């Protein structure tokens, strides 16, 4: 009879099971919270840097940014909290407003395409866009950021109508080669669905945002 053979363990009592489970749960909770607290500042920093990178990409020449919230009542700094669409106001080195950036999204080929676009109130036009999230077909759908002719669609005319409640001309994506006005986007042949998604997203966002933003643009021009 070997003394190294382990004895069969007696079935554990309920209280023992609860003790162990509870103990392990507390240990896990402690480890997770510890990691969370340690990494939170770094993660926040990364997130801000990612947003800034996109904002400065669509509004070239900008060096600083401030966040604002836009809703039916007007515009206020994002730090004040509350509801509304978040927009990023970007200023150049002299403190002049270069434009604002906002998010837009629409259903593309595979899933929703999310973009960040820049709007310059001086020319009332959309200066460009950057892709935030896209699962479109690589090589086809991602042409929207590489195709020179597609990028030549910008700056895009986004003037408001006389009543200020909507765009003078709705932004729309048209078939490749049939663009007639500066508010239209010439689609990439072979990637029409993704091109249309960009157009739809821009139109939806601009129609909702710009009428509410435009009357208060001067508020944004003051950079603290």
């Amino acid at each position, binding site marked *: 009879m070997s003394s190294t053979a382990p004895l069969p363990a007696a079935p554990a009592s309920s209280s023992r099971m609860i003790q162990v489970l509870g103990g392990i749960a507390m240990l*896990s*909770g402690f480890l*997770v919270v510890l990691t969370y607290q340690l990494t939170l500042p770094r993660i926040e920093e990364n997130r801000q840097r990612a947003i800034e990178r996109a904002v400065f990409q669509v509004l070239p020449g900008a060096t600083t940014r401030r966040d604002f919230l836009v809703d039916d009542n007007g515009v206020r700094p994002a730090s004040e909290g509350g509801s509304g669409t978040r927009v990023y106001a970007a200023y150049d080195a002299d403190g002049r407003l270069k434009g604002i950036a906002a998010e837009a999204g629409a*259903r593309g080929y*595979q*899933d929703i395409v999310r973009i960040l676009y820049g709007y310059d109130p001086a020319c009332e036009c959309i200066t460009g866009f950057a892709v935030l999230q896209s699962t479109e*077909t690589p090589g086809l759908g991602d042409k929207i950021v590489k195709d020179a002719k597609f990028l030549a669609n910008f700056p895009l005319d986004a003037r408001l109508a006389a009543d200020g409640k909507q765009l003078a001309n709705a932004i729309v994506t048209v078939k490749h080669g049939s663009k007639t006005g500066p508010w239209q986007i010439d689609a990439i042949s072979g990637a029409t*669905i993704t091109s249309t*998604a960009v157009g739809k997203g821009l139109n*939806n966002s601009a129609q909702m945002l710009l009428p509410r933003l435009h009357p208060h643009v001067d508020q944004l021009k003051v950079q603290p």
Partner: protein
Amino acid sequence: MHADSLTFIFLNAAIVNNFVLALFLGICPFLGVSAKLKTAVSMGFATTLVMLISSICAYAINSLLVAYDLEFLRLISYIAVIASAVQLVEMSMKKFSPALFRALGIFLPLITTNCAILGLALFQTAKEYNFVQSVSYALGAGAGFILALVLMAGLREKLELAEVPSISQGAALSLMLAGILSLAFMGFAGLGAQ
């Protein structure tokens, strides 16, 4: 975020972004259970049931976690909910359909480690679906899972009677089949886009 129609969510989860063939979730049961058509169908339905229960519970838990700012507990609570849902389905199946319970055997508790279920919970949270959208998403994902399993099982049952090279027997052949199925399903891309 645009309010996606329920039909779109269902079709998207079932066909366009099929959980198995496009999102690579649930591969282990897909390769393991799809040898016989009957087992595959039962497994598919059991998984769909678990998906539905988990989706609803995950939605509830997430609302709680967000309300109390405890988002770092999300993963642990989701997996706990899934394990409980599987246990629940196992017990009810044992009671109401013992033959099915015996047929599925070890695969039932293995539904807990099916990435499709946890993936479903995580995706629906990331997409910020409301309650009805989450249910539609879960049903769509389940339907897609059943579809993929049935297709694979049908193909494999046929192939058992065919002569295949010995080096391809087993998982290698199933993977090649899956690749072709996945390629075929890519044709559905754009379905539902206006």
